[in-house]
């Protein structure tokens, strides 16, 4: 508690100076300790890797003003609760819990440490000192879908996902909607493999899809396995997820959706240092640079690149929203009227598929 009061006093003094000096003034005192917990290893080349890159970004940007710590491979359950308390007790004043399954634990621990700020990624339970943050990955999917619609020869796209949660359903739908704007006959085949990290199973799912005529694969799991199969089989392409995966599929990665959590982590840490942090519910995307589109692959022609860029820039300036009606579901019923944009709440509970998505079993 005393530490916290001192922090706020210092931050208040610094706020009178230039914003740039704010962090430096703080650095002369004690650095803000920021903790991160990851559900997997930082070496997964995907989701957890991207969060850790965000942590490194924060550390680089604020230098001595912050001191970051992370714990990897934290199981979702009571073990997570213990790790969170460990971090809080070691003086971390801002803690990021980066996986949905940490939610219960975050809420419990946050009650025990009211002076510690928590932020929970992709969750839905808030509290006075628990904020939520998420990224509009679907905006990236809309760019991917545009490219897929142009380049796919068979018009058969696939999406390898873990579980049918709204996050994944949204991505499938954004891919289908954007691809069908280019090629109205395009279809998307979702395959759920019931795991976040089993590279061999992801790879076999990709093989099964390619063998049945799919020539563009998007995946929503933690690693590059499916993309590598796309490269090996020489199909039209696939997309990196979470991070640029071109090292794994130099010819076949058409582009990648990069989770760029750094700016969000920076903003939150600064807010805590300045004493302006409030439990927010942020859902940022391309505009805020939290979702980035990676470099385009060699197969993406100038013309397709221009179309993709138009979708990307349209989402940045707000002129384009992929979930704008009319949208029919895959039974043919109209779900969103012409001109209407789906609300965030509707998106975050999406459990139906748009036209062109084959109903998964």
């Amino acid at each position, binding site marked *: 508690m005393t530490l916290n009061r001192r922090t706020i006093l210092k931050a208040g003094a610094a706020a009178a100076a230039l914003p740039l000096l704010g962090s430096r003034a703080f650095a002369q005192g004690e650095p803000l300790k920021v903790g991160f917990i990851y559900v997997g290893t930082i070496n997964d080349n995907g989701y957890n890797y991207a969060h850790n890159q965000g942590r490194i970004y924060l550390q680089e940007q604020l230098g001595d003003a912050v001191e970051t710590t992370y714990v990897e491979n934290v199981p979702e*359950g009571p073990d997570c609760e213990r790790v969170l308390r460990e971090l809080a007790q070691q003086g971390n004043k801002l803690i990021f819990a980066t996986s949905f399954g940490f939610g219960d634990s975050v809420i419990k621990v946050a009650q025990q440490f009211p002076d510690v700020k928590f932020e929970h990624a992709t969750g839905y339970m808030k509290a006075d000192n628990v904020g939520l943050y998420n990224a509009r990955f679907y905006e990236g999917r809309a760019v991917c879908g545009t490219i897929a619609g142009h380049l796919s020869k068979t018009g058969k796209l696939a999406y390898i996902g873990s579980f049918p*949660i709204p996050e994944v359903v949204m991505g499938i739908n954004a891919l289908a909607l954007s691809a069908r704007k280019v090629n109205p006959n395009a279809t998307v085949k979702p395959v759920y493999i019931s795991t976040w990290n089993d590279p061999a199973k992801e790879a076999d799912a990709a093989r099964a899809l390619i063998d049945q005529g799919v020539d563009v694969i998007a995946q929503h799991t933690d690693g590059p396995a499916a993309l590598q199969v796309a490269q090996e089989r020489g199909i039209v392409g696939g997309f990196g997820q979470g991070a640029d995966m071109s090292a794994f599929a130099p010819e076949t990665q058409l582009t990648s959706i990069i989770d760029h959590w750094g700016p969000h982590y920076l903003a939150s840490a600064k807010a805590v240092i300045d004493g302006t942090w409030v439990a927010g519910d942020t859902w940022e995307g391309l505009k805020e640079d939290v979702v980035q589109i990676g470099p385009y692959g060699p197969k993406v022609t100038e013309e397709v690149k221009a179309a993709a860029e138009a979708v990307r820039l349209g989402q940045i300036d707000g002129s384009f929203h992929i979930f704008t009606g009319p949208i029919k579901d895959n039974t043919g019923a109209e779900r969103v009227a012409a001109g209407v944009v789906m609300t965030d709440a509707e998106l975050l509970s999406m459990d139906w598929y748009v036209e062109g998505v084959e109903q998964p079993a």
Partner: protein
Amino acid sequence: MPFRLEKRPEPSRLMQYLTPAAAVALTMVVGAIIFSLIGYDGMGAVREIFLTPLTNAYKWQDLGVKAAPLIIIGVGLSIAYRANVWNIGAEGQYVVGGLAGTWVALATYGMSGPWILPLMVLAGVVGGMLYAAIPALLRTRLNVNEILTSLMLTYASVQLIYYLIRAPWKDPMGMGFPQTRMFAEAARLPTIIPGTIVHLGVPIALLVALVAWFIMSRSVFGYQMRVVGTAPHAARYGGFSENRTIWLAMLVSGGLAGLAGVLEVAGPFQRMVPGFPTNYGFTAIIVAFLGRLNPLGVVFAGIVMAITFVGGEVAQTTIGLPNAATGIFQAMVLFFLLGGDLLVRYRLRRVASTPATGAA
């Protein structure tokens, strides 16, 4: 070789107590050296993993909560292993116990009353017993190896969780995530020390260990288990049925694993999630051995294992030791302990000297 092994007439009591301590000490020394050699702070790793959880009073609640399921399952397994019944499917029985408790919690959702929690516990114990009854039945009726069947059933049980929480038991408000709803207040295990996370399962674990110790050392049942294990032929002459022993061993170990499962889901988890199988059932096998198959030894072994888990996380946050290092430390404790087992049953003797003087 100037030494040779000689079987002791009786297992050495001294070695029985000494070897687990020596295994931990040896792990600390060897671990510090190895991790220093590969570029980590080896001394720091040992300090944070093995000592900090003990010296930091704030960590004691974590040790209690982490050790409780290990102790409960470990006690059951130590009884079974004493009788030479190799139930290695405790993880599966733990899972089914947790699922049975969850079923009661979901079925009584919206109701209240002090009967719900005991009913859940009962369901958990029965669930664990029933799941253990399958290998018991196959072993006694068809002479099928229980190691293999109980192991296979464990993997099947994990899939059962995934199925139930993805489809019929999915939380209607859970945004489509595969998990059940949060249990109602009446279905949650109360904490016994306000302001901590120490729940009712912790004293239950100690009680289970004490009762088991008493039964194993003082009752006919315990005698039967021990005799069947050490001298099956003598047991048969003594009128102890081997099948009866197998059934008892499987039901006791399965029931206790189920108890641990239901306490865990009603206590720390408070809902069924995909992360529920946390390898407690497998870790408890190690705990049973580390505790020398003695219920009181299991209490200490459970705490030692809990220390390495809790300390492993401390080491990650304080000195940046990777998560993988915890596994290596745990494996080292076991390797040294299992290797040291030999000294309980055998002693080293100098070949040249006479048996009376050469004890090492």
